[in-house]
């Protein structure tokens, strides 16, 4: 957002310009109040991670810890913390190599379908799961995979195999998670790429047709290069969000027997804070995550700016 005030308005004194917008200032009072209470006050609340917090004494009245970073040193020694950090990174990377490219591939081929109504039907069906909650998605996954009359296990026994308890075995967790992710999000994830493909100059295809290009060749040499900028931006954003492996899917699909491979930072914060009531330690972990996140995001924003001449958020 560049400041684009014309020289004319610039010359007016500040007070006069502010009076012109008096009502707009009044309009944003509730908005500012909302952000102060629900975004900025919680930011201030982070200080409890350096304190011995008593609700009765409030944040200000609670004593500072000695040393103040006590919760952090405790945290970094926890085996569970290391495990959660490792799982977070592993799951994010897995999603990057599987869940990231699939919407692109879907969009590329969707745009090739010449039957308009069929294409719309396919889109509607594959967008749908995105709009249901992870609780619903996971419930259905549980039902399909149940050892007792679940469809998948029924098929396995039909083929002469043994029933498998997919939900409690560590080695199946990632497969399960990735499958569910693709089912829920891949279709809707293609929307942005379909839009980008729609904007590719149709003359390019005409010319290629005259040159005798095949459809796949056009896809490779025209479509993909045309949408590459948006792919790069989304890729970098994905990398920037590596600390967010996704609370919802993990929380709804995991259980105690797979914590070893499934527990991520967000689920650990939840169990520590809400589950065990260790507010200060959970807040400390939250702060750690937020700091790493912002460093990654700002780094990525700079990178995007360098590549495209424009940041992601301005």
């Amino acid at each position, binding site marked *: 957002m560049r400041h684009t*005030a014309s020289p004319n308005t610039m010359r007016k004194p500040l007070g006069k310009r*502010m009076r012109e*917008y008096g*009502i*707009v*200032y009044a*309009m*944003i009072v509730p*908005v500012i109040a*909302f*952000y102060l*209470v*629900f*975004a900025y*006050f*919680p*930011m201030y*609340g*982070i200080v*409890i991670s350096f304190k011995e917090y008593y609700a009765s004494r409030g944040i200000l009245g609670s004593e500072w810890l000695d040393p103040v970073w006590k919760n952090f040193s405790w945290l970094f020694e926890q085996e569970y913390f290391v495990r959660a950090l490792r799982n977070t990174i592993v799951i994010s990377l897995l999603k990057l190599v599987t869940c990231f490219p699939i919407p692109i591939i*879907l969009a590329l*081929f*969707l*745009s090739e*379908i*010449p*039957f*308009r109504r*069929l294409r719309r039907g*396919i889109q509607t069906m594959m*967008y*749908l799961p995105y709009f249901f*909650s992870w*609780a*619903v998605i*996971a419930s259905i996954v*549980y*039902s*399909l995979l149940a050892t007792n*009359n679940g*469809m998948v296990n029924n*098929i396995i026994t039909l083929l002469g195999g043994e029933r498998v308890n997919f939900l409690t075995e560590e080695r199946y967790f990632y497969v399960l998670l990735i499958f569910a992710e693709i089912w829920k999000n891949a*279709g809707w994830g293609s*929307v942005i790429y379909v*839009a980008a493909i*729609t904007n590719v100059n*149709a003359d390019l*295809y005409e010319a290629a047709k005259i040159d005798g290009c095949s*459809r796949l060749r056009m896809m490779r040499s025209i479509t993909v290069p045309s949408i590459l900028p948006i792919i790069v931006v989304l890729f970098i954003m994905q990398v920037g969000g590596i600390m967010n492996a996704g609370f*919802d899917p993990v929380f709804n699909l995991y259980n105690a027997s797979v914590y070893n491979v499934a527990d991520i930072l967000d689920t650990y*914060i939840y169990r520590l804070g*809400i589950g065990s009531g260790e507010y200060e330690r959970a807040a400390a972990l*939250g*702060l750690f*995550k937020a700091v790493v*996140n*912002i460093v990654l*995001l700002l780094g990525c924003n700079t990178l995007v700016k360098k590549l495209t001449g424009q940041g*992601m*958020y301005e």
Partner: protein
Amino acid sequence: MMNVRKKSGLFAPHAFDYIVSAVLLLFALGCLYPFVHMLLISFASEGDYYSAVTIVIPRHFTLNAYAFVLLESRIGLSFLESVLITGIYIVYALFLTSLGAYALTKTQMPGHKIFFAFILISMFFGGGLIPFYLTVRGLGLIDSWASVIIPFGINSFYMIILRNFFKQVPDSVLEACKLDGANEFTIFLRFVLPLSKAALITIGLFYLVDKWNDWYWPMIFINSSEKYPLALEVRNILSGTSSIDYSASDLSYRSGKEAATIILSIIPIAMIVPFAQKFLVRGVMIGSVKE
């Protein structure tokens, strides 16, 4: 979709098109089937369910599962409560969000940059779960429906999308209003909002889906099971912590009752989304436009 049509018009359909269509159709049906599976289970008798190997065919079609869920458990009530919570939430969130979004279009307003930074910072950095929880608790909202409505009045991403929509209202309209002596609030109320109906529907739909599906914040903020919204009831089936006795012996069976609950929770969205697809897609596209 112009170019797609033009581009595909270049070719008479041939083998390539049929193969691509078939593969994608298969994927799409794969996405849809699990929901159909649950729907079939919800209508099937216990015998139908246990004799089925793959596709459950409700030979003895029954509504017993729905009778139990709607009449003998509190699911029917929680459905209505979810409608109420979602409805109130949409009005509240749209009100706050559009106020902020309108102010964000005023790029020449002194303090615009500060206001924008104020919002941007909160998108990059936040207090995290626990300080947020303590804030809501400190306000005395715990265990009330207000706890899942009031703290979620603005989604900053949606606000920026809405701002991009508002920016499409032609400046000439705004200038004309100003010359007529209308103040900013009147312009906002009488011109910008009515001209941005499609935008408000789009953002309203995003808020609707978010709130209808929200099980997480109710799980954290609401303690009394008689106040659980439907989405949380679904989550509680999954975690095995439901206060509803799905194994109660009556005409229906456990899996059928659970399936009926899941189906009830997805019906409103499943009915809205296909028709609202145009709006939702446009929301994503406007959201990806940078200025």
